[in-house]
């Protein structure tokens, strides 16, 4: 099981580096926004696997908080792209 989780860390790190490539090379601003959103979701999965790896459940709290903050950031960036205020 520990071997599987270590393999999973490798897979998630490769996915995170692909997202970082898209953040760096994306031609437009929404490309970068999509990549940031995807990176947040991948980090949630990484943190949950780390909670299973160590057996301590407070890493799961980090995952929940990260999902919440990533969602708020995504919504704020999308409203900024739309070019409107936040009260509409």
């Amino acid at each position: 099981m520990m071997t599987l989780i270590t393999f999973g860390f490798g897979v998630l790190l490769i996915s995170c580096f692909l997202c970082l490539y898209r953040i760096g090379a994306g031609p437009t601003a929404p490309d970068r926004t999509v990549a940031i959103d995807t990176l947040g979701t991948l980090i949630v999965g990484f943190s949950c696997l780390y909670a299973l790896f160590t057996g301590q459940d407070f890493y799961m709290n980090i995952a929940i908080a990260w999902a919440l903050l990533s969602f708020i950031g995504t919504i704020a960036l999308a409203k900024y792209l739309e070019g409107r205020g936040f009260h509409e």
Partner: protein
Amino acid sequence: MNETVGIVFIVVGLLFDLLGAIGLVRLPDIYNRLQAATKCVTLGTCAILVGILIYRGFDPLGTKALLCAVFIILTSPTGAHAIARGSHISGVRLWEGSVVDRYADARDMPVTSKDTESDTGELRVKEG
């Protein structure tokens, strides 16, 4: 038995995560990238979380995994929809191989037009 099912769920989730990230790099367009990245990565991460829940049972770690999975299922499509709408409004063009853009037609159309009620959903040809 529970451990085997949980391991299968975690492996499937990792595979979907990797495929979503590859699609984020390889596809040609912001909308196609949104398609690949959001759906595949959401399903993959939720499969990992459900696998952790099945592996551990309803102890504190598993219950928090279930809570996190529900939260990701609720929020991730909302964020993707907002990004797609914002990028279309901010003027990002579609890939040149795209065949239809219903949202641009709907935004050009006046709201009180009679064509709105009699729209049968067929492909509309733009005048001019």
